[in-house]
């Protein structure tokens, strides 16, 4: 009896992984292909309306402690990133969100929503990281009002950019050799090293628009500098016309903006004018979608 068992065991161990021995476990109830694939598993609840409009499920705003890896905290943290770039960005300082540590959100009676976040931000060129505490307020109501941000960071300004900025400023200050460029980065993600500071400056300038346009349902990044042209230096400020492409993640749209940008090491980046560009020149205006 014992020998039989032993032999059986040996055989089984050797035959490990025989493809004909198969049990599909843990997959739970499946929807048969002949059933309507859109059928909802029994017991699930959906709040939907049956209109033909696009957004048929209401987005419920999370309140209280936020999960740092979920989208509400990350969208708000990206707004803080844009804010920090408007304050501290330059052709040699471009800040990106590294990690969301914690956050919370609450409704402010009939006025909007307030977020509190603990973040790590990273400066892209020097790789210096800093811890930041931030508070944001997204105004509610009808108007398209920009979010209000307050943030304090430790350690981010340690990157010493003064020498590079000064050199760059002096190099381009004289108006006898105005620079321009396009498609930065190009389709392959490449850019000439000399174009890199202009790319970074474009990113920082875009932050002004991205900050202004942000709400709890958007997530902006700059996709590309389509082109830029240096204009005559005025009042000691380098001046540029920029055409940037912004990527909005939730709608997946590419949005074109033209900006008038100035910069000097002392004054920082300023955006004097912004102009939204039409989506594409050969498209007609989209028809009214209320059917």
């Amino acid at each position, binding site marked *: *009896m*014992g020998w039989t*068992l032993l032999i*059986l*065991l040996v055989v*089984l161990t050797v035959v*490990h*992984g*025989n*493809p*004909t*021995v*198969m*049990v*599909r*476990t*843990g*997959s*739970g109830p499946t*929807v*048969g*292909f002949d059933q309507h*694939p*859109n059928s909802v598993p029994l017991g699930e609840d*959906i*709040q*939907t309306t049956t209109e033909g409009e*696009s957004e048929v*499920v209401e*987005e419920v705003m999370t309140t209280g402690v936020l*999960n740092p*890896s*979920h*989208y509400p905290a990350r969208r708000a943290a*990206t707004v803080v990133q844009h804010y920090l770039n408007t304050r501290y960005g330059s052709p040699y300082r471009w800040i*990106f969100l590294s990690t969301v540590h914690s956050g919370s959100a609450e409704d402010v009676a009939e006025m909007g929503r307030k977020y509190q976040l603990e973040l790590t931000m990273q400066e*892209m060129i020097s790789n210096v990281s800093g811890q930041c505490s931030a508070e944001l307020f997204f105004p509610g109501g009808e108007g398209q009002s920009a979010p209000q941000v307050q943030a304090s960071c430790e350690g981010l300004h340690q990157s010493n950019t003064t020498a590079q900025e000064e050199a760059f400023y002096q190099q381009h200050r004289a108006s006898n050799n105005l620079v321009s460029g*396009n*498609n930065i*980065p*190009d*389709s*392959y*993600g*490449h850019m000439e090293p000399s174009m890199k500071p202009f790319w970074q400056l474009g990113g920082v300038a875009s932050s002004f628009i991205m900050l202004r346009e942000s709400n709890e349902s958007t997530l902006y*990044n*700059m*996709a*590309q500098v389509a082109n830029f042209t240096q204009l005559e230096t005025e009042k000691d400020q380098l001046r540029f016309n920029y055409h940037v*492409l912004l*990527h909005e993640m*939730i*709608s*997946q749209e*590419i949005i074109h903006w033209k900006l008038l940008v100035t910069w000097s090491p002392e004054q920082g980046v300023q955006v004097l004018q912004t102009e939204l560009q039409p989506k594409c020149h*050969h498209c007609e205006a*989209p*028809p009214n*979608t209320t*059917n």
Partner: protein
Amino acid sequence: MMMLGLGSVGLVLLSLAVQSGHGAQDSAVWSREETTERNYYTRYHNMSEITAWMEQMKRENPDVVSSMVYGQTYERRNITLLKIGLSSTVRKKAIWMDCGIHAREWIAPAFCQYFVREILRTYKTDTKVNEMMKNLDFYITPVLNVDGYIYSWHNESTRLWRKSRSPGTGGCTCYGTDLNRNFYANWGMVGVSTDCCSETYCGTKALSESEAWAVTDMLGKMREDILAFLTIHSYSQLILVPYGHPNISAPNYDELMEVGLGAAKAIKAVHGMDYTVGTSPDVLYANSGSSRDFARLIGIPLSFTFELRDKGEHGFELPEDQIQPTCEEAYAGAQHIITYTHDKAFYSYAATVTATLWTTLLAAWVSSAILL
């Protein structure tokens, strides 16, 4: 007269010889470059290069690689997959991977190419890869949205195209439907637009797009055999699990999260990059009509979307010098999922029985030792 005839025959023969010699030399140089130059997998490739590469993979590995055309795009181009696995007399289980459903996400087809090269490079020497090649077939579509991908290579102004290239209808003059909103999985419910000019336009109806139909058709035919479904996108560094609708949970959500988190851990071990794991409505946005959701709905238990590098610095225009590290980490993540899938299918039953019998034998020995 005869001299003329001989001369002209000679000339014809000579020109033929030169031509074929020239051609042979060209293809020899080209294939030498393509196969041995490690730089090939660190660059982006247009559609005709990828098509030629698929032919080369078949040619160089005829016993393990074959191809299948399983559909047509709007512009009547072939949608082709590579079927990779050791041949077998019995029907085999399968792993599905598709790349490039969104045209501008160039890193995705680059990853599919890298993945194919990697399993072909290692299956003879790596016992685990060999075992998986023996027990499974890999069905890999390097570029699903062929029309869109070609369009994104057209010039700089088309680089950021996302959708298919079917024309708008009903007076709407824009082109393209978002293929990843066009599947028969809660179609049209959330995270879509009904405006044909929009990037998330879900189409006139589910499966209006021939590309989505091709995948649906294949998955339907292979439904019993597919163990895992991976669809590759960029950017955001995420691993997404079904479903895209915020109020519907996959029955094996816990398993999906566990495997996904394991994959993220494997990814981080390669180059330190963080990939966030969760349902789309939790970590990104709600959406419906995705291929991942459709795969899970028809019963494929392990269905994941990979969103590769980066997190917004370059976005879709990821520099070529990041192709290799991105592919290396994504490969580690995919292998984690595939290994789990394989081992679950081919080990769990036998392992349970074996463990039970060993325990029984041990108990029998112990009791007989005590009795003696």
